[in-house]
């Protein structure tokens, strides 16, 4: 499907397809970092608090 999209076409949001993909890449990376910190925080909470005990 992506090969059908013209990479130079400016869409209603003012972005081209490569620009949209770049924004999405950063959003995914941010989500992964947030998720990693959250998993770490929950691990510490599980170890050091009465949670689930």
């Amino acid at each position, binding site marked *: 499907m*992506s090969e059908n999209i013209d990479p130079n076409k400016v869409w209603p*949001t003012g972005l081209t397809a490569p620009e949209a993909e770049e924004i*999405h*890449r950063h959003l995914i990376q941010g989500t992964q970092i*947030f998720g990693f910190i959250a998993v770490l925080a929950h691990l510490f909470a599980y170890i050091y*608090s009465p*949670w689930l005990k």
Partner: protein
Amino acid sequence: MIYGKIWLVVKPTVGIPLFLGAVAVSSFAVHYMLLTHTTWVPKFLEGGAQKMAAVAAPETTAAAPPTALVAAAPAIKSQ
């Protein structure tokens, strides 16, 4: 990155704050409900205050010296 093309139809200035706001609101709601609907989270966050209060409570001092004689000291036997 199969969903990257969403930003062709949704403005990132709208979609990204909406996404981050949804994450913030939902995680706050979950933790707030844990704080208000469980007994152990507030107790844990309170720390050792209750234990220390329980230890400190029995320390009572007499307001005045006793006026009535409760028991007399045993008499010393002479040999």
